[in-house]
């Protein structure tokens, strides 16, 4: 791994740590604020029916997704297919919601966004996924050495 990639990994780790810290702090602080757009709740619900109604199963699915995301993210980053920071955003959002589900038996939500109540981690996940797809430059000839990976 070159110096440029090492630097990108450091930034990505900082982004991931910061994202996780901000989300956890927001989940702790928002419930103390009275505002029409804040509706604190611990949400254990499952939707779409595909998770079989088991919280344990969903936690397991979240762990698997997190491991696969980080694994695929590292592989692609080392090949210069995409930068490290979108991977960090997705990983931090996923990890923070996973921590909630493991420690609180549900995800702590507070931000009213239209018909749903979301949290900072959800926003990090959404931004991460979109930016990951948008910044990806899969293995076209020359990518490996020509792209800046920061």
């Amino acid at each position, binding site marked *: 791994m070159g110096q440029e990639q090492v630097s990108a990994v450091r930034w990505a780790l900082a982004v991931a740590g910061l994202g996780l810290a901000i989300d956890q702090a927001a989940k702790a602080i928002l419930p103390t604020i009275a505002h029409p757009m804040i509706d604190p709740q611990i949400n254990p619900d499952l939707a779409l029916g595909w998770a079989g109604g088991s919280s344990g199963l969903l936690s397991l699915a979240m762990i698997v997704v997190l491991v696969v995301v980080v694994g695929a993210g590292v592989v692609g980053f080392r090949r210069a297919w995409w930068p490290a920071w979108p991977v960090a955003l997705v990983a931090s959002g996923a990890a923070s919601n996973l921590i909630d589900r493991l420690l609180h038996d549900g995800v702590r939500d507070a931000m009213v966004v239209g018909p749903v109540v*979301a949290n900072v981690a959800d926003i990090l996940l959404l931004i991460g996924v979109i930016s990951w*797809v948008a910044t*990806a430059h899969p293995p076209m000839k020359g990518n490996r050495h020509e792209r800046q990976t920061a």
Partner: protein
Amino acid sequence: MNARLREHLTSLVVRASLIGGGVLVLLVEAAPRINRG
């Protein structure tokens, strides 16, 4: 197979996998909570 065609196909597969994976990630990480208000 033509090398250039293979590169394009690989690129296409990776992009499609990314989009599919992204949707899956959002489904698992965020959408499970979408059915409550």
